[in-house]
């Protein structure tokens, strides 16, 4: 196990490095002056251009760019954002919190309510309620997240005024407000984006769980247990659900990337100050260091997520270790 873990971690680190290098090369195809984010549409004379190129290092050969990036990244320096004029790591750190909060809570809902609904609909497949849940989640999955968001804003923020239509917190809340007031404010601002994220994606855990339970429901050990007279509740949890959980747990790791980068459209609708909108803005402004920095963060999450998935799989299903 330890040997496997070391090898797998090394593998993930190499893949991350490879992915980031690929991204550094890929962004070279972006058209327009690499200094577009700095010079905007100011008329610039040749002397100014030379000075700016020198400062921002935009006329260096690709090899130097890559070497500089890797060298900086190893010291925790991802360069300076052209559009913001500030270190990329600083900007990323500022935007990471809101994204993790929204993505983390979405995952939490998936792995509680989502799994429970999946189990319940698998055990009661022919009931009306199961069909309604199935239909609703299918529609939620079929609708783009931003359409759900627009509809929720229209109804719950603009028509009925129950929740704020956008933003992460209320700037008018006193900076020394009590914990209760701050929490309430967070919940109010989270309500619509979180509901949007959940509605748009909860079909996935429900369907996975339902399929997994479908497989274990008539497994030999379940039949045997039923014959032994095990109570239906115990049967459902112990004999059917436990084994069906194994394939689901690995989903957790695979969904980690979504936690960081999966919300760009929802973030746009709700002016949520996260990583997704940051990447979209950075690309539209040709802020190459920012695109690469944020992309590197996402690549890292993908690799960590997949490592985590493998690890969890081995933990819940030790038989794999022998293989």
């Amino acid at each position, binding site marked *: 196990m330890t040997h496997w873990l070391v090898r797998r971690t090394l593998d993930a680190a190499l893949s991350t490095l490879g*992915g980031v290098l690929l991204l550094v090369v890929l962004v070279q195809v972006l058209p327009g002056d690499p200094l577009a984010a700095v010079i905007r549409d100011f008329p610039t004379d040749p002397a100014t251009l030379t000075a700016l190129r020198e400062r921002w290092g935009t006329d260096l050969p690709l090899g130097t760019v890559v070497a500089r990036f890797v060298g900086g990244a190893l010291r925790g320096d991802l360069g300076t954002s052209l559009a913001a004029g500030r270190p990329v790591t600083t900007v990323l750190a500022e935007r990471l919190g809101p994204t993790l909060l929204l993505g983390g809570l979405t995952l939490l809902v998936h792995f509680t309510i989502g799994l429970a609904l999946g189990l319940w609909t698998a055990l009661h497949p022919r009931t009306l309620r199961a069909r309604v849940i199935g239909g609703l989640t299918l*529609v939620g999955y079929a*609708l783009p997240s931003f*359409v759900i968001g627009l509809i929720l804003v229209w109804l719950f923020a603009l028509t009925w005024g129950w929740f704020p239509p956008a933003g992460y917190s209320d700037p008018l809340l006193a900076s020394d407000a009590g914990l209760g007031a701050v929490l309430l404010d967070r919940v109010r601002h989270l309500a619509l984006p979180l509901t949007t994220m959940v509605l748009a994606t909860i079909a996935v855990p429900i369907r996975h769980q339902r399929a997994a339970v479908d497989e274990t429901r008539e497994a030999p050990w379940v039949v045997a247990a039923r014959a032994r007279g095990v109570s239906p509740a115990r049967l459902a949890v112990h004999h059917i659900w436990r084994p069906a959980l194994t394939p689901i747990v690995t989903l957790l790791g695979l969904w980690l990337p979504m936690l960081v980068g999966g919300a760009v*459209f929802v973030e746009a609708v709700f002016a949520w100050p996260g990583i997704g909108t940051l990447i*979209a803005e950075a*690309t539209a402004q*040709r802020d190459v260091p920012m695109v690469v920095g944020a992309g590197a963060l996402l*690549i890292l999450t*993908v690799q960590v997520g997949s490592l985590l998935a493998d690890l969890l799989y081995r933990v819940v299903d030790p038989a794999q270790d022998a293989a």
Partner: protein
Amino acid sequence: MTGTLRAGLVLGGGLVLLAIVGPWIAPDPLAQPDLITGTLQSPSATHWFGTDQYSRDVFARLAAGARASLGIAVGAVVVATLLGTLVGLIAGGARGAAAEALRRAIDLLLGLPRLVVLLVLLAAVGPLTPLSLALVLGATGWPAIARLVRGETLRLRETGFVGAARALGASPLRILRRDILPGAMAPALVAATLGIADAILLEAGLSFIGLGIQPPAPTWGGMILEARDHIASAPWLLLAPGLALVVATTAATLIGDALRHRLLPGTR
């Protein structure tokens, strides 16, 4: 399961029909007959789904948008499936260092966040046409199919009939083409059908953040973008393309599910 398939085919067929007969039964989707009094009209007998802020017929745009949105999604999936199957077969059929290098390359590409790659590529392509958008979507979608096909190829390579063919002296290429390809295609086909739903949603999302095809050509995502600021006064502008998206993605999902049950019994 035939119920699922039938439902999917009916929904999907309806949209394809809309896309095909749209030009005959609907007015010109680009015409702006009356910019002064004809804008934002609610649904009526003349304008089944009302008019937009340019006085254009929403039903006509929905039909034209079906052609664009479905065309882009199907085109993207075809590109991704062809590329993915080809690379997957080679990666699964090859041996030694080449196979390992290909596997690594596929994994590397899969590890890149698709949205970042898309944003960069779409900016690089410049003004987008349906064709270039489909190509870019396809070019970023194939690694997933390649991994699937590679896995299936590896599995089939170890089965008895491939061994028998090899024993009979069939060339490796022939084995790949005759014995492995048909089997490996099944999961690729299922993934492709399900991928149509993803491609439709992705195209809509990209249009929504301004990275769609050139105006004034309609797509459903572009229609939703234009509907944004009229949601309270003209909700049909949002509901029409929203509903079309639901029908399209549901159809693709249902057909994909049905295909999976038929082609890949025993899988989830």
